[in-house]
């Protein structure tokens, strides 16, 4: 099974096959000899590679993980081939629309649009108060407000859905 691991706009391809209980791994198509052990069931892992030992701490979900290695932190998103195909298709369909998420935790002060309303790129969609500042969240592209996920007064966490946009067909 191939897994695509994205760090921002850089992607690494990892293929894992299980042969007689042993993991056979390739990284970007090249064989990668590793041994992997879990120190506990909470994401503390040790990976041995080329005679070196890498102790890491992994947290998150199968789709978004944060990996800490010797004080450095790596935020990665992961998808397998099936998910990659589905995500590509969804992105193509949305053409830059899609879900608008909160980039930081805060409280929704006011929603400025309604479901079904047509919006222009950059048009303010809602006001999010975070760090004692009121931030206008603008539309990433022109389209129609498909769904509003958060209402005025709602507390949202970083990454929570605010609203979904459907991009208009040209």
């Amino acid at each position, binding site marked *: *099974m191939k*897994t695509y*691991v994205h*760090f921002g706009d*850089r992607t*690494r391809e*990892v293929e*894992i096959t299980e042969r007689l209980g042993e*993991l056979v*791994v390739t*990284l*970007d198509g090249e064989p*990668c000899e*590793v041994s*992997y052990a*879990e120190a506990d069931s*909470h*994401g*503390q*892992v040790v*990976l041995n*590679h080329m005679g070196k030992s*890498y102790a*890491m*701490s*992994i*947290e998150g979900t*199968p789709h978004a*993980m*944060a*990996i*800490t*290695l*010797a*004080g*450095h*932190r*790596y*935020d*990665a998103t*992961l998808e397998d081939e099936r998910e990659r195909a589905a995500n590509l298709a969804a992105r193509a369909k949305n053409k830059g629309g899609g879900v608008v998420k909160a*980039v*930081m*935790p*805060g409280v929704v002060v006011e929603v400025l649009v309604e479901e079904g309303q047509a919006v222009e790129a950059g048009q303010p969609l809602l006001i999010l108060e*975070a*760090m004692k500042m009121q931030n206008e969240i603008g539309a990433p592209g022109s389209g129609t407000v498909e769904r509003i996920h958060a209402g005025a007064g709602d507390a949202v*966490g*970083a990454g929570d859905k605010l609203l979904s946009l459907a991009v208009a067909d040209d």
Partner: protein
Amino acid sequence: MFRRILIANRGEIALRVIRTAREMDIECVAVYSDVDARALHTRMAHVAVPLGGELPSESYLDMDKVLAAARETGAEAIHPGYGFLSENATFARRVEEAGLAWIGPPADAITTMGDKIVSRRAMTEAGVPCVPGLVDPVDDVETAIREADAIGYPIAIKAAAGGGGKGIRIVRDPSTMESAFRAASGEAVASFGDGRVYLERYVDGPRHIEVQVMFDAHGNGVHFFERECSIQRRHQKLVEEAPSCILDEAQRAEMGAVALQAGKAVGYRGAGTVEFLWSNGSFYFLEMNTRLQVEHPVTEMITGVDLVREQIRVADGEPLGYGQDDLSIDGHSIEVRINAENPFEGFLPSTGTLHNLRMPGGPWVRIDSGMYRGLEVGLQYDPMLGKLIVWGRDRAEAIARMIRAIQEMNVGGVHTGLPAALQVLQHERFVNGDFDTHFLESLDIQSPPEHEGIVAVAAAIHRHRLARRRALAPSDAARDGWLARNRSGTARHVERAGVAGATEGIR
């Protein structure tokens, strides 16, 4: 000596005070908001009093509730920590009116130093060097333009009631003075309800160096040398060290003497910090913080003096008992703040529940932290969760030790500024001592890409294992349920312990 004191704070600083008080055989009264029922300070004190409420204004900032807690528990003194009520002159006065000792400076000193214009005037009169500029607020644009020419550009327009870098505007060119003045004044009204602004020379490439002072109630005062706090972002410090590598012995002594002069001028008592801007060999008074500072441990590490103990002693009326000549610097110390923030996303606050907590250890590593597994990091309070402090025989050894300690440390559940601190400590300019207060903002924080391959492999294998475990054991829900039950059980236990605390808590 006091038998029982109340600590009107939370988090790592409440713990810091509790630790020293316990060593002095003084009982501690903690106060806590609803959110902090399971917090470490609540658990480590002899007595814990619930204040109720979730917001600071409903709990740690509510003077009536804090004073009532002191009265009910028979506390003889109040230690305010930093933040919250620590620099509130009204509170300091009310504590003393209630017949309690205030482990802090006199209310008048807090008032004087709390106002930028008043403190600047007092310092100028006391012969403390200030940044060239006006002591009085500027009323109109015409005066501002005229005075700016006299002071010399670049000019900083600052809000009289401001602080923490808010409401500061830098003008490099006289032609933009008018619009900048109007904007700064308007912003000051909006932010502080006080439109007064004043002008001063903007100091280019400054370093932030501060001197720790301590005065007793008998007219004795000493300084504990300086701390360098130039590694900051929007006036939030990240890495602090002592001593500063830019000062020589003569200037160190001069800065210390000036800091004592500043304290004497306002009749200071207790621990305080005089902050200076240092630029090209000159230094200027910035402000005085009339409380214990977050970064006080680096001073403790190089002087061997427990500053909280000294605070408590002088608040009880004891004389210092030593002079400046008895103090010296031994080695070098560095502190890194552990803030819940995402350095890869412009240091935005990060929230979550702490897990996978691994603290570093080994020789000369100190941790002052309010963190525990299960701590829910929200937005109600300061994002600073704790501090990592190291000591070394010299600066190079301290840097190497801090890098080692950060590499050992793991804080799961939230982002922290640790990767940014690591990048600072490994940066050639930091190692060479060649930096100013803009250094941190100039860095592009990122993790070394050469490890992305191995990290990707680990992540993919981890995902593979997760998927297999999920397929084999659909009992995750049962386990989570058990954890959730266990957690609420703990909270109930702490609530029960409540006011009765010490005796009933131990069963």
